[in-house]
């Protein structure tokens, strides 16, 4: 039986990706050097965890989908996922390797289990994944992934309860996936931030630390916070924290927290927390 060996929640921002490219070429700015250093432990953990496959719950930023049809929840099932051009051209990275077998298995179990997922056999992936992935994985990227895109760009967005339950149902689906594969589940969304309106740049580090502190053992308490409250206190895009609940839901009550880091480089709270299942 395949099993989930761990997972992590991590922020994403366009600048995280662009600063990585600059950082490698000419050295990181002090603000981003911290994030680079802070993610070394996650990279080391991921190498030790040695997943055969990864499920990544993220959000698109109108880079693949547009409002002619914007899915509330979508799953990518394809041999590869190309990088989306977000308006400033492509970064020097290859496509992601897609996991067709796990993708169809999850689609079968989750759709039959009550999730009306949009299935994407062609999906361009944006900074939701491309911004943090280079920090954690050297090239070539060989671990096949199943991306799951959650609408966070136009309200209404899925509830925190729904996304938490979605994670639990991912776990159930993995239980029936044949083979002995090791699977890592990722949930990625910005922490506190707001990138439009006069509240642009709001930075509630207190809220972000509180979230990281409670996510493992007091998940239900966090899930019960109205998304409006998260947006009011942490900026409208803090609603993306709800995506982290899918990661948490996919893991057991027995996980150990093995790494945590947080900094606020510029516009977005950048945090990461890693949970590991007992062997």
């Amino acid at each position, binding site marked *: 039986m395949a099993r989930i060996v761990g997972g992590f929640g991590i922020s994403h921002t*366009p600048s995280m990706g662009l600063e990585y490219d600059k950082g490698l070429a000419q050295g990181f700015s002090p603000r981003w050097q911290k994030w680079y250093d802070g993610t070394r432990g996650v990279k080391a953990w991921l190498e030790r965890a040695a997943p055969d496959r990864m499920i990544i719950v993220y959000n698109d930023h109108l880079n693949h989908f547009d409002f002619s049809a914007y899915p509330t929840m979508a799953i990518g099932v394809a041999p590869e996922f190309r990088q989306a051009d977000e*308006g400033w051209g492509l970064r020097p990275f290859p496509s992601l390797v897609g996991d067709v077998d796990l993708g169809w298995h999850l689609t079968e179990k989750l759709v039959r289990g009550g999730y009306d997922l949009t299935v994407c056999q062609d999906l361009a992936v944006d900074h939701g994944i491309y911004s943090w992935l280079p920090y954690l994985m050297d090239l070539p990227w060989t671990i096949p992934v199943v991306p799951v895109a959650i609408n966070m760009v136009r309200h209404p967005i899925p509830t925190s309860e729904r996304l938490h339950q979605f994670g639990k149902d991912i776990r159930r689906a993995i239980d029936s996936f044949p083979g002995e594969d090791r699977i890592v589940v990722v949930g990625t969304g910005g922490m506190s931030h707001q990138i439009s*309106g006069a*509240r642009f740049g709001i930075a509630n580090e*207190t*809220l972000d630390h509180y979230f990281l502190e409670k996510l493992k053992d007091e998940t239900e308490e966090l899930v019960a916070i109205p998304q409006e409250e998260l947006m*009011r206190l942490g900026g409208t895009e803090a609603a993306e924290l709800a995506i982290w609940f899918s990661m948490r839901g996919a893991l057991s009550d027995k996980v150990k927290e093995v790494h945590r880091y947080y900094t606020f480089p510029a516009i977005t709270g950048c945090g990461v927390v890693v949970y590991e299942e007992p062997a």
Partner: protein
Amino acid sequence: MSNSIPFNLDPPGTYLYTGQMATKGFKLTRFGLSLRDPANRERFLKDEAAYMREAGLNEEEIRLVLARDWTGLIEAGGHLQAMLKVAATVGQNLWHIGAHNAGMEVEELMRICPRTVSALPEGEK
């Protein structure tokens, strides 16, 4: 505007992107997203107004884009992520949009970010 940040979701602090906003700004957002294609970026830069007329924008929307009136564009229902692509195409970035929204110069906004606040959900310490 000062650096004080209200804990509410009302304009001009926040423009929550609702269905109604998406309907109002449908064409504006569609136009912004068309600039994901490098060939479209090139065509747009050659003659901005002509490109936008072809995209079905009205005169007011065209005026807002030509004026780089990012706040007006967001009020008109242009989605931030789509307006960001317009900004990128004309050599601006998120900071320009943010500064316009916050009523500041870019340098000033960059200097005061992160704009630290501290608050927890009700009843939490």
